[in-house]
């Protein structure tokens, strides 16, 4: 029965994935019909027609980027929730995006004289480094503090400190110098091209594969560190690998798409409820797939709802994700107290 349920969930996610792909390509100021999509993709028609260009150069890379990064974000959330044994742990709660933003602000202002307009590669590298640095800081504290909730609080505090530094820098910066920063911090999949997609995929997919190999110790970790250790898990190594994987994933997303909130918290919860299991071997692919579908639909909303004005992706994921999280927390509570 459980196997049946899981198969159904994965089937449904696969169907939703396809639906999201088709819907995303069709919708926009220029409509592309379903038949045309199939024709263009399967004949690999790259001739210079408007529909072809829109599909190959704009919509397809954008939606694939949303899929890869959405999956990465949700998987990162799953790993952090496992590690912190706390349902609200997520990459952005722990200050990753604020760290990235602070670092980006410093780099932007420092290099304002060097580059007239900030190259994308520099933005990406700066945001990535910032994310990793703030995560390392949280990790440094985790060695000293055994209580995971306290660690979560420290993460949140670090995030406030980073925001304060960023705001301070912005106060003294010239408007023109920080255009790029403002743009980045809106968070968006727009402008995603094949180069970015390739780079992101090269980071995300190997990490996903590595996480699969961690699924066995993650399952042992479900009963707590004490039991995991008594089963032969090398706890210290495991902690480092888990945090490294989730940091790389969320840093990658932050670097390419800016801060995107709530995907990391909401999606793993949705998966848990759908699958009714905690087994990492199922949760890892489900989180990834569900995150991809979630972000593709959110991106669809972001670019079409108030078209031609585009919303930032974070606006949509928060608006959709936050109520889900609240609902989940309340229903969990009720279940506990029953």
């Amino acid at each position: 029965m459980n196997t049946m349920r899981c198969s159904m969930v994965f089937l449904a996610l696969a169907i939703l994935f396809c639906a999201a792909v088709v819907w995303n390509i069709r919708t926009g100021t220029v409509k592309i019909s379903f038949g045309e999509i199939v024709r263009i993709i399967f004949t690999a028609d790259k001739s210079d027609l408007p529909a072809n260009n829109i599909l190959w150069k704009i919509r397809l890379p954008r939606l694939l980027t949303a899929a890869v990064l959405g999956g990465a974000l949700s998987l990162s959330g799953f790993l952090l929730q496992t590690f912190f044994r706390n349902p609200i742990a997520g990459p952005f709660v722990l200050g990753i995006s604020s760290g990235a933003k602070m670092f980006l602000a410093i780099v932007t202002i420092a290099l304002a004289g060097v580059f007239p307009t900030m190259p994308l590669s520099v933005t990406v590298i700066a945001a990535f480094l910032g994310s990793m640095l703030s995560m390392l800081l949280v990790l440094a504290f985790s060695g000293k503090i055994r209580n995971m909730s306290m660690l979560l609080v420290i993460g949140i505090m670090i995030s406030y400190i980073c925001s304060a530094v960023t705001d301070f820098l912005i106060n003294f910066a010239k408007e023109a110098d920080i255009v790029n920063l403002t743009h980045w911090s809106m968070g968006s999949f727009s402008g995603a091209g094949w180069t970015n997609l390739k780079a992101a995929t090269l980071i995300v997919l190997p990490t996903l594969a590595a996480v699969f190999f961690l699924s066995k110790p993650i399952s042992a970790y479900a009963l707590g560190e004490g039991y995991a250790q008594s089963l032969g898990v090398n706890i210290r190594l495991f902690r480092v690998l888990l945090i490294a994987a989730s940091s790389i994933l969320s840093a990658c997303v932050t670097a390419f798409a800016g801060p995107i909130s709530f995907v990391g918290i909401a999606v793993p919860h949705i998966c848990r409820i759908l699958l009714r299991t905690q087994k990492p071997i199922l949760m890892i692919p489900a989180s990834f797939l569900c995150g991809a579908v979630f972000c593709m639909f959110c991106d669809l909303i972001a670019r079409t709802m108030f078209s031609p004005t585009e919303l930032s992706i974070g606006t949509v994921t928060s608006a959709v994700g936050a109520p889900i999280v609240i609902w989940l927390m309340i229903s969990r509570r009720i279940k506990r107290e029953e």
Partner: protein
Amino acid sequence: MKSEWYFSTDALCVGYNGRALISEITLGLRRGEILTLIGPNGSGKSTILKTISRHLAKIAGTVVLDGRDLHALSGRELATRMAVVLTERVRPELMSCGELVASGRYPYTNSFGRLTERDREIVRGALRRVHAEELYDRDFSEISDGQRQRILLARAIAQEPEIIVLDEPTSFLDIKHKIELLEILRDMAKKQRITVVMSLHEIDLASKISDKIVCVKGDRIAAYGTPDEIFTDERIRALYDIEHGAYNAALGCVELSRPAGEAEVFVIGGAGYGIPFCRALQKAAVPFAAGILWENDVEFPVASALAAEVVSVPAFAPAGEEAVARAKAIIGRVGRVIDCGCPVGEFNRVNGELLRCAGAKRTTEAGV
């Protein structure tokens, strides 16, 4: 040379953050023996157990498991030999009992944790062992504390260990489940020769299940030996600093402290008839005297723990003039007697005499 011990420690020193809490712990266990750590709260029982299970780094000394240094074993190797049941409350979400028990197979499964048919058979066997087969599909968070403890034990059994370390496995359990759990452990120890090291709060149960006892108190272990050597009234009183109340080693029972003051009533019982009266008087905080009791009477330990005065006679000896005179003197002083209804026969006819003599003052306030 292989020592006679399967598991032993030599001058082991345990503590936190490099600071020694208890040192020079030296003990040895053969396969299938049960060692129980007893001692007051906070005495360091858990610290010792955590060091033995390698959850805490040792400070000094050695631990030897089957002729090899425990701290030189790889994590996986130790996992196939030693299983643990910890005190920390686990609350995994969305995990069935079957899945939880299956996690004990971790050291044996492939790199993705796939369970083979043999693994499943072992999991089912472990559940059968703790009489919890019907819980296989139940969610772990929805079962009772007693059931949870059994499932955690099944998890340890599924790990197929040679030694199992349990930290207060009986806390949170009612008496039925305590007995059940300890019986499972004794079975494992005696039938499968699995060595058991655990801590218990219930000294009465500890004396009944253990082959060896360690009393933990202070910076050394206070005593180590077989239950017969350890369970003397004085040693237990000293271990737990019992100033009021009593512990009876022979019966393994605990009495609360006796009511303070001069006896106000004389209890004439025997053969256990007087026990409910003694307890009732203790609860009502009425000091009392009791007699005449033979020292081999089941009532004697209770009365001597609770009564202000006991008129007693050595086992199997006739009650002499002196005892009768003492009893009469007390009755004369307190003026009230409780007849517990013990039949008067050939050997305790002196009690009948006491009752007759107290006849005038006799009260029958049975409920006190």
